[in-house]
């Protein structure tokens, strides 16, 4: 049974899409305030795993409990950052406005002009938006059109957007993808700081473990239709990954502490939008 202290619990969960099993018999447990990375090669269903936690993908077997509720019912307590490409460079909307959508973007109607001047709730909302922008260190560029700031800066603003409603669980799908190395390091540090200082549980999908390795409490390594979970030291080991892939895999540790996984079978290269709904690659093609 899920304890109160567990933020996310997968219990022998399986997902099928188009009659094909993406992964099955996945069990994992993330305690509240922990930082979990969902790792694995492209196309094995990492995004599907977080979508199952969000209730966006139905289960074929087993159960998923999020914040003590069945998946999909924790709603506003989850901040979600889907995998994305960058904003169009010509989009003339300020970063602040994008962040503010996290607070009331789905509400019907239009905000009253100058509402912040005489409505306390609007003033509080505007204050909260400024606060999260400060928290992610985006104050300097939040007033610029979002299409004109760098990828790392856009990612910070989007994290701020996901944080506006004070979620207890933050689900981030490849937030470090397409960032340069220094941005990867600083955004990873930011996510870890939010996780520690604000007791927000983080579920982060990543392709490369190294930028986030120092901050992780737990990893879920997805491959070959299944997943292994545990602490990084327990999971990212030659014998565990060899067993998971059914092919010899070696984990090497470089002198700077970076992990290198050798012999990891990659899914066949796909040059189209590989994370679209239909883009999961059959595991047996390896």
């Amino acid at each position, binding site marked *: 049974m899920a304890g109160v202290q567990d933020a996310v619990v997968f219990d022998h969960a399986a997902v099928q899409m188009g009659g094909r099993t993406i992964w099955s018999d996945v069990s994992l447990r993330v305690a509240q305030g922990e930082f979990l990375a969902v790792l694995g090669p492209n196309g094995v269903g990492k995004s599907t795993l977080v979508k199952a936690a969000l209730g966006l993908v139905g289960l074929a077997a087993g159960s998923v409990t999020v914040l003590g509720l069945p998946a999909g019912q924790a709603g506003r307590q989850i901040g979600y950052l889907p995998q994305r490409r960058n904003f169009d460079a010509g989009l003339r909307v300020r970063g602040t406005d994008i962040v503010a959508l*996290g607070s009331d973007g*789905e509400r019907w109607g239009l905000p009253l002009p100058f509402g912040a001047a005489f409505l306390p709730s609007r003033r509080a909302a505007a204050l909260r938006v400024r606060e999260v922008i400060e928290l992610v260190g985006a104050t300097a560029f939040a007033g*610029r059109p979002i299409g004109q700031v760098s990828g790392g800066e856009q990612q910070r603003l989007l994290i701020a957007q996901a944080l506006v409603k004070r979620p207890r669980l933050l689900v981030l799908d490849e937030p470090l993808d397409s960032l340069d190395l220094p941005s990867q390091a600083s955004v990873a540090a930011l996510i870890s700081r939010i996780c520690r200082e604000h007791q927000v549980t983080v579920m982060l999908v990543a392709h490369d473990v190294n930028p986030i390795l120092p901050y992780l409490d737990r990893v879920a390594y997805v491959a070959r239709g299944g997943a292994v979970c545990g602490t990084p030291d327990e999971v990212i080991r030659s014998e565990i990954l060899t067993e998971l892939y059914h092919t010899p895999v070696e984990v090497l540790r470089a002198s700077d502490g970076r992990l290198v996984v050798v012999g990891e079978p990659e899914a066949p290269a796909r040059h189209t*939008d590989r994370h679209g709904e239909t883009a999961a690659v059959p595991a047996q093609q390896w």
Partner: protein
Amino acid sequence: MTTGPLASGLTWSLGSDFRQLLQYPFMVNALRAGTIVAVLAGALGWYMVLRRQSFAGHTLAIVSFPGAAAAILLGISATSGYFAAAIIAAIVIAAVPRSLGGRARSSESAVIGTVQAFALACGALFVSLYGGFLDGLTNLLFGSFLGISPSQVLTLLAVAVVALAVLAVIGRPLFFATVDPDVAAARGVPVRALGTVFLILLGCAAAEVSQITGALLVFALLVMPAATAQQLTARPALSLALTIVAGLLIVWLGLAVAYFSVYPVGFYITTFGFAAYLLAAGSRALTGRLHRNQLQTTPA
């Protein structure tokens, strides 16, 4: 043909010129219609530019031309033809499957382009079936402000009020779905349904604008004010307000000048819109350069 100076022409006194303008009921009707259309087109055009759906907007206007021509041919009012054709086309465009995400855009524009060409050809056929009334063709394509009846103004007003009311209700989620569809969908915004409703509203706006500027020059009021405002500011509320103000100024100036001139009103409205856009883009380029120079001269 559009009219020349009907009465005494320009007097170089703005006050008396303006009074002269308002003496004629047809001119008052034109100004009323222009005002209604400018507000509706500004609001919908602002979203259209943000959503990169200009091509769809243009097609909706083009489609309204055979609609109006067919209505005239059948002996019913051109106004209903404009609206019926544009709204049907909006529903058709919305039904083009977009389930493949970003990749569907190219196939969507191919479908829209195909529909647009066929619609234009049908319009030409209807006009020639009617008896090659060439003057009517020019007005349908390039606009006319003569002969706008009070009942037509009322129709324009009623459609605009309903469309703006719907837009006011869906405004914020539509904005969310426009700038960030994935996150909006994850937060429970009905992205696809909003897109359909938006296209129908856009069809209404395109049909209204067509009746003033003609089917080919709708962008004068749908794109130009919004593009101008978005050059000037990145604040959503401010740029929406600026869009509507720009649209009103462009229409009023265009109608006033067209009254004293022999050339079509569509030309003047478009010219003022173009001038506004050039000014806005120029000033933005200039301030951008000044800003960069400042950054370069002050060491970090």
